[in-house]
């Protein structure tokens, strides 16, 4: 985990916030609201979206066509957030998301990125040898499945729509959402029924 912020960093932050307020660029209330939105966001949001897509074809179509609208349809505020794109895994294609340039991540629906997502090792290796990276997560794809690495380089943020695993027939949305992990939404893992 990250070290706690240094006192001089906090003092600098205080002065920056005061300057932004004094210039009328943001208000304290806006900053508090944004912090609350960021703190509320977690992979549970993305998991609920996936579970609904698995059970509701119309929602699935919306999710793939317009991730931002699909998030808002679940009550997530996307105001000010980058547009969300959703990548559909199929029996012949598996998506893996990385940001080689920095740490772009769909925070609105997955929350804060994990440390490994921001690491030099993941950023360098995911794009270069994705199958070796997947294997280290215990993710072994069947023969005939293409790996498509999605390098999140600019204004969009990307989330994976995993395939619904066998053995989940008849499950309700809550039970389905419980097996959709953050790692599956980034693409390093796949959901399992057991």
């Amino acid at each position, binding site marked *: 985990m990250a070290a706690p912020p240094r006192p001089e960093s906090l003092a600098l932050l205080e002065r920056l916030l005061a300057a932004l307020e004094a210039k009328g660029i943001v208000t304290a209330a806006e900053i508090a609201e944004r912090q609350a939105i960021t703190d509320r966001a977690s992979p549970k949001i993305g998991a609920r979206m996936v579970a609904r897509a698995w059970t509701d074809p119309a929602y699935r179509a919306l999710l793939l066509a317009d991730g931002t609208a699909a998030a808002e349809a679940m009550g997530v505020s996307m105001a000010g957030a980058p547009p969300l794109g959703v990548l559909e895994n199929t029996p012949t294609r598996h998506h893996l998301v990385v940001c*080689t*340039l920095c740490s772009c991540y769909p925070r609105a629906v997955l929350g804060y990125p994990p440390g490994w997502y921001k690491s030099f090792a993941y950023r360098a290796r995911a794009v*270069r040898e994705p199958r070796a990276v997947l294997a280290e997560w215990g993710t072994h794809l069947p023969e005939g499945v293409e790996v*498509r*690495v999605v390098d999140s*380089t*600019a204004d969009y943020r990307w989330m994976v729509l995993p395939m619904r695993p066998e053995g989940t027939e008849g499950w309700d949305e809550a039970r389905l959402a419980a097996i959709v992990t953050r790692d599956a939404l980034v693409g390093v893992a796949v959901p399992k029924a057991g």
Partner: protein
Amino acid sequence: MSEAPRFAPGSAVRVKDDWPERRGPCHIRTPHYIRGRVGRVVRPLGAFPNPEDLAFARPAPRRTLYHVLFDQPPIWQEGRPGDTILVEVFEHWLEPAGGGA
């Protein structure tokens, strides 16, 4: 600068083999490993203020952003044939590569 997209889905495009970081301070969103490489436009993603200007607080004209698909080999020899890399690339980094797809 926010006219209709120049490249249609399926167009073959070459990423400019340009290295602004060698000329001075810059902020670019085009990864090094695709420069000079040929890919295929999947679709335009919309127009966004040019981050190369935004980063320096300059007026930032909107530029069309594309999803461009590249084959793993030859970009990375560690990749398996048939695997791909999908990257967001701004229009001013792309030129026609001929051929189509």
